[in-house]
């Protein structure tokens, strides 16, 4: 037997193979149980011991040669095949189910997280409540004109002699005295109350149902500086590090002093100027969103002593601050969701945007 001839034959056969399968077939014909190598091994039985030794060596080296050549050829062919694989990855995939969270849910989650970090616990209080919690405890006695500011939604449930009529809460502030009562009139209080509110307004900028988040902090020595600190923290966390906050005097019955909170406009960054369209514009137009560089966030103030008293807390020992902001409003300011009428219609075209 001439190993060199055999090797040549193997090389020639492998050179003809153009697919991995053909090489696998060759592999079987040489290295398989009934392959040529085993044939050769059978043939050497008849040889003398000396010849057996030489032939055995030759056959083994031939076997290694075949295995190596087959492996090499296979790798080359595999590489060629791999190179043929090609997919247009820009083609769309088959559709996966895509659902959505309501924009209110997204904001509520974000806001809760921000206040959690500074130790405020989220609470939830009735949406149908007595006038007592919606007004009386908030320093708004029955005859008070301020009650007209909250054009209230009354319910058919029978009134209570002490508690007054049943109303849909016009604000989340009904949670203030309820939280004081829950804590048995014992501060500290650190509450964030998020809920649905109701007022009988239905137009381009009002829906009869909306959401508020209410902050309430009562402790010894709580100051206006603390309120400013908290608002500053919230506004920077929620709207961005460069957002500034300012307080302006205002009036609410349940706070004294009372403020309105403005933040630097999220669009013009407080410059009050519209983005420059062209360099040639001689006089830059005013920002269309804010006109003044500031956007109104909502109402706040230092808890009125009468509210603390209504919650059984001594205003000579404790003080506090409170605020109530609209979630639809902060969504508008932060994310530009400007038509709030879509929020509660269940329109799938709106919901699918989130």
């Amino acid at each position: 037997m001439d190993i060199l001839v055999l090797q040549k034959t193997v090389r020639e056969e492998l050179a003809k193979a153009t697919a991995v399968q053909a090489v696998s077939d060759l592999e079987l014909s040489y290295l398989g149980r009934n392959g040529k190598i085993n044939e050769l091994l059978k043939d050497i039985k008849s040889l003398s011991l000396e010849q057996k030794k030489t032939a055995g060596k030759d056959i083994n080296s031939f076997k290694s040669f075949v295995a190596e050549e087959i492996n090499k050829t296979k790798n080359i062919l595999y590489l060629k095949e791999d190179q043929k694989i090609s997919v247009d990855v820009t083609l769309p995939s088959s559709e996966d189910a895509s659902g959505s969270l309501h924009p209110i849910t997204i904001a509520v989650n974000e806001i809760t997280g921000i206040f959690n970090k500074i130790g405020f616990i989220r609470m939830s209080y009735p949406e149908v409540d007595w006038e007592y919690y919606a007004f009386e405890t908030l320093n708004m006695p029955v005859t008070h004109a301020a009650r007209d500011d909250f054009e209230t939604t009354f319910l058919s449930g029978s009134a209570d002699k002490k508690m007054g009529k049943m109303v849909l809460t016009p604000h989340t502030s009904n949670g203030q005295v309820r939280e004081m009562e829950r804590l048995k009139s014992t501060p500290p209080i650190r509450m964030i109350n998020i809920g649905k509110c109701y007022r009988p307004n239905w137009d381009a900028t009002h829906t009869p149902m909306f959401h508020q988040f209410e902050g309430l902090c009562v402790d010894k020595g709580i100051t206006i500086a603390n309120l400013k600190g908290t608002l500053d923290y919230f506004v920077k966390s929620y709207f961005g590090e460069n957002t500034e906050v300012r307080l302006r005097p205002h009036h609410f019955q349940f706070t004294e002093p009372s403020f309105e909170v403005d933040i630097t406009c999220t669009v013009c960054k407080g410059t009050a100027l519209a983005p420059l369209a062209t360099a040639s514009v001689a006089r830059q137009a005013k920002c269309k969103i804010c006109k003044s560089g500031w956007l109104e966030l909502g109402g706040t103030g230092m808890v009125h002593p009468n509210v603390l008293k209504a919650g059984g807390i001594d205003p000579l020992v404790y003080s506090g601050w409170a605020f109530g902001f609209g979630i639809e409003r902060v969504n508008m300011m932060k994310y530009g969701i400007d038509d709030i009428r879509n929020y509660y219609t269940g329109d799938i075209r709106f919901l699918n945007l989130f």
Partner: protein
Amino acid sequence: MNIKITHSWLLEYLETDATPLEIQKYLSLCGPSVERIEEVNGETVYDIEITSNRIDTASVLGIAREAAAILPMFGKKAILKKRLLKTPEVPSSSVPIEIIDEKGICRRVLGIVMEVYEVSSAPDYIAKRVLLTGTRSINNLVDITNYVMTEIGHPTHVFDYDRIATHRLILRHAKKGEEIITLDEKKYTLDESDIVIDDGAGRVIDLPGIMGTANSVVTNETKRILFFIESNDPVSIRRTSMRYGIRTMASTINEKNPDVELAYTAFLRGIELFTEVAAAKPLSPLIDIYPNKVKTGLINTSKSFIDTKVGAAIPLKTIVSILTNLDFIVEVTNGEELSITVPTHRVSDVTIPEDIVEEVARVYGYFAISSVLQRPAYVIQPKDKENLFHYQYEVKSFLKHKGYAEVMNYSACSPMLLQAFGQKQEDYLHITNSISEDIKFLRQSLIPSLVQNIKQNEGFSPHMHLFEIAKTYIPQEKGLPQEEFMLSITVNTSFDDLKKIVTALFANLNIATEIVQGGANEFLLASVQGTVKSGNEIFGSFGQVTPQFCRNLELDKSVFAAELYFEQLMMAARKMPIYKAFSQYAHITLDLTFKKIGSYTQIKERAFVASEKLISVALKDTYKDTITLRFVFTDPAKNLTEQEALEQLEKIKIGMESVKK
């Protein structure tokens, strides 16, 4: 409310070097909010928001006073120029005039009869200002009353003296059903709580503080006037004006309790203008019915109290000068104790030390106070609340990722929707002053609204998977309704889709449940309804929405819905499943086909009863009346042999057959 005043008018009461833009900026930061500045016909007009407690600022005089206190804090010159008003000379003999307020309905009544030279249009400067501040220019007499109101801040009225034939004015409560025609020719039927002026012959000649009546107002023929001001009861003014929807500037101011002392200033200023503009001469003395003079207020507080509430140390000198500029009189004792006299125009607003804190802090400048987070405090959040919010977000996210869209509907629905779902209105709480029939009845289930959502979206999306988590309001025998969070899911695709999501949801919350045929949800078909339970705990129902209800909404396609008690779900949910180590030994899977008798749940129960080595059952197929199940067997202590597994399967087979017999 908002008022408009012009810059030139303001300068008649304020000496300043501040520009209109500076005035806008600084006033808004420390006092009334100047919302806009407009340039109209060469005049700068301020549009100013007046909060309900600061009616004293609803005038040129009031804004000038604020500016005089605020602008100097920004280094601007600002001095209040008070107008010197003379008491007019009155004739020794008076024309007949009698004003009677026997019951003391008003706190003060002022009146004077004057002879006017002519009724004409007002001089330009008056007509122009009246127009710019948002009122129509009528004639010199009426314009003066509006001019005085804007300048001084107290409403005034002018009668035609000769149209009150009796020359008597009696303040009294209206009689029920009494009719009047206001000067804008509108007719109103009055109530006993309204206050009117009677001419002594039973004729109503005014709705004081709100609007004059057609029968007594000045006309072009007027020769003699009665200039009249009264300080009415603010609550009564508000009620009457709200009841009839007569929202005049006068009523808006009067209902906010303007200063009674200010009425006299307005009176003298009015007389001065009638004299100047209409060459008027007094025909009667000044009538001033003022039984109880308004008192100034007194508040005792201290610098340290102010500092503690503000969170900053404001120099005593600054505190005193701020308050003095606002017309408070301050007496300092012991170096820091403050005894503060509150001027009459602030007595209804400034009553407690906190009000003084506001006055000082706002003029000092809220911007000048530093921002300091309060020291932390630990408040325990009730576990049920923590879980409620945690699982709400968890469940919402889960459903979102499963392809469901979250809806938020109004908490109330229409009578039509109730009717479509076979509900009785009387079982529901309803809004008594609803602005729309669409939101009248408080929901007790979320399913009707969600089915309505499917209907409304029909044209936009053929396949809909929706959910909502919201409160329902169940009326109680007594007291507030029970507010209960529900989770409802609706699909318009298939029952299988619904069951798949319900099953996956419970698995995700690690709640082991069983499903039984039938349920108590009245919106679902009894025959296509299941109840999800765990032991005795019922989580809710799922199934097909009764087709008749869908047809009532003109929905032809089937709708499937689940409604689950969210708080029950939340209480049973686990953040981690109950841990059970996986078996080290072989699992043997065997199939069996047999005749289906009873529900799948029952068959499954039977299988577990029959074999102690069974660990799971799955549905492989159903064909006609047969069912093919796949059983998995294992032994916790050793490797099960195939033979042993077959023996178990045989036990199950016998178990199933025993039911047939």
